[in-house]
């Protein structure tokens, strides 16, 4: 019996050693990957070394957005024997206002779009992150990691990307009568009058109109953009802002074309709709979300463990393979995804040109918001 126990202990120690770090192995998270595609990666070592029992981590994020699924918060709670609570984001400006007014003391980690990271940092809400504590940091998609929008003037990293995606064009193949659709300009086609679903986001709207005008989407002629968007209005059936708004409009047959998130389109396809998601020839609109550490958080270690977990292999793989899939920021995980998963993420043929939503100064931001508001009010 004693020999058996010793052999087991040696075997366990050897396994733990071999799974030590993300770069060289994985973290020993017992969660595993159903598809077996990725090593488990990252966080579990810390989970074994640190005791977070009884501690509570508060994460500000959009609801029903990967982290609040079983493979997210529940897995993290099990791993670290802690509690995770969520603060649901309704808009980044509103969240900033809440945090500045006192909510900051209860939130430890916040998910922010790079458009707002500098604003949050400028207001003293978030603080730089020690990326050496993120075991898979080097595996994260290079073009969205450590970009200017998430760096302090002295090079500190304010946000760690954990998810990215596109807001691109979709169409109902049964309703477009075989027309070839490959350009944003198709949304302006009079045959789609009253059949377009358009995302209620000033960045997307202005960048799309700029692309159709052949203009620079980051610095377009705003008068021309406004005129172009006014031309589109007769074609728009609904300006959607939430998952429910969009799904309700498309499933009822009210709209046949527009812009959307890929996860919605995958879900509709799984429901049997003959719907396509394409990357228009002018380029598509991309986005990425970053986890940021709240300045003054009382749970810094747990917060770092959370960011580590969310960029680790287990979580990233689960996120990509769930019913409503999301695109992982971890390239090592991406490399392990099979064709079916890539197809569900609409990345069998990734977009050739992607324009990311980036930070803009306050004056530009206000001009863009005012423009879109005026278009809606007209």
């Amino acid at each position, binding site marked *: 019996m004693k020999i058996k126990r010793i052999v087991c202990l040696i075997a366990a120690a050897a396994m733990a050693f071999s799974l030590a770090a993300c770069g060289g192995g994985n973290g020993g998270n017992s969660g595993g990957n159903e598809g077996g595609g990725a090593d488990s990666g990252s966080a579990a070592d810390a989970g074994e070394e640190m005791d977070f029992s009884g501690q509570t981590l508060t994460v500000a994020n959009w609801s029903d957005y990967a982290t609040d699924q079983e493979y997210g918060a529940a897995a993290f709670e099990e791993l670290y024997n802690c509690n995770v609570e969520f603060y649901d984001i309704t808009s980044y400006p*509103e969240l900033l206002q809440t945090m500045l007014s006192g909510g900051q003391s209860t939130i430890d980690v916040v998910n922010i779009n790079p458009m707002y990271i500098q604003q949050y940092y400028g207001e003293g809400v978030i603080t730089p992150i020690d990326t050496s504590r993120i075991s898979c940091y080097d595996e994260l998609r290079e073009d969205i990691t450590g970009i200017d929008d998430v760096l302090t003037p002295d090079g500190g990293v304010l946000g760690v990307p954990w998810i990215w995606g596109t807001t691109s064009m979709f169409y109902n193949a049964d309703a477009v009568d075989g027309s070839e659709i490959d350009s944003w300009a198709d949304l302006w086609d009079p045959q789609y009058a009253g059949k377009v679903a358009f995302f209620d986001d000033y960045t997307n709207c202005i960048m799309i109109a700029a692309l159709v005008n052949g203009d620079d989407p980051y610095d377009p002629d705003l008068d021309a953009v406004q005129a172009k968007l006014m031309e589109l209005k007769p074609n728009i059936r609904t300006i959607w802002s939430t998952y429910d708004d969009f799904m309700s409009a498309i499933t009822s047959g009210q709209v046949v074309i527009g812009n959307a998130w890929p996860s919605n389109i995958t879900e509709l396809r799984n429901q049997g709709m003959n719907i396509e998601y394409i990357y228009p020839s002018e380029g598509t609109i991309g986005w990425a979300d970053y986890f940021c550490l709240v300045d003054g958080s009382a749970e810094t270690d747990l917060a770092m463990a959370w960011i580590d977990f969310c960029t680790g292999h287990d979580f990233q793989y689960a996120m990509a393979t769930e019913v409503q899939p999301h695109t992982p920021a971890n390239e090592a995980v991406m490399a392990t995804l099979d064709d079916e998963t890539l197809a569900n993420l609409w990345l069998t043929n990734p977009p050739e040109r992607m324009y990311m939503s980036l930070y803009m100064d306050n004056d530009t931001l206000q001009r863009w918001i005012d423009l879109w508001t005026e278009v809606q*009010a007209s």
Partner: protein
Amino acid sequence: MEQVSTVKKRDRGTRALILPSAAMLLFISIIPLCLLVLFSFVDGNVTVGRGIDGFTIGNFVRAFSSAMVPKLLGKSFLISLIVTLICIGIGYPAAWAIAKVVKPQRRNILVMMAAVPALISQLLLIYTIMKLLQPGSVLMEPLARLGIIADTDTILYSSKAVIFILVYEYLPYMILCLYSVLEKIDDRVLEAARTLGAGNYRIFRDIILPQSFPGLFSGILIIFIPAAGSFVEPDIAGGPYGMMIGSLINTQYNTSLNMGYGAALSLILLVLMALALLVINFIMSTAERKIGGKINA
């Protein structure tokens, strides 16, 4: 002397009873209103615990020089007026039926049924009605089968859908307000009028309408102001042309973070609505006098 002392004690007791409601009025109505006026002159955003950038009349200059603001105000006012009129049109017969036609023992259950929509979550109501308005729904399908509308017809994503939803949301309040006054009308007065040869129209005009004015005005007050400031309904169901002034105000708080301008727009809306209510009150008072003197119900 003893009697005077008792009266004074009773007065003190009454004042003490009024204190909680007076404090509530102060904290949830008067102070917020004062803050609204103050913030409407703030330059930019207002954040608790932080300084204010300064005061300006620029928010009002911006609002009055904008072509968009009067347009949205006019549209919101019109939609609110239509919603209020439809609620009156449906609410009157419904409240009358509950108060005077059905058996007294069934009134409570009908009042409760009328109040049910007011107890349900606003978002749930909106999404439910949107389902009902979709082509092929239980509401639209029969109309399509009868040939009244085409299979694909729907009022969804238009101002009509916004009006439909707002009516559904606010109708219970109008029914309850009217029911509370109609129920008090003495049946013997109606019978006497009938005996003296008055027709239904005359009875309504000279007896029912004047006595129901207080309830009617309460209903208008409860519906007209919040309906004009709606933003969730137009945002979800209004389509590309559905935006109302409430949406513009909401944008200032949620997207632009320009609370000063948002407060100025809110104040302008509030003042205009108050003026509109004064006009409505004046019309109703005039009507009361012309019909036959003020009647306190």
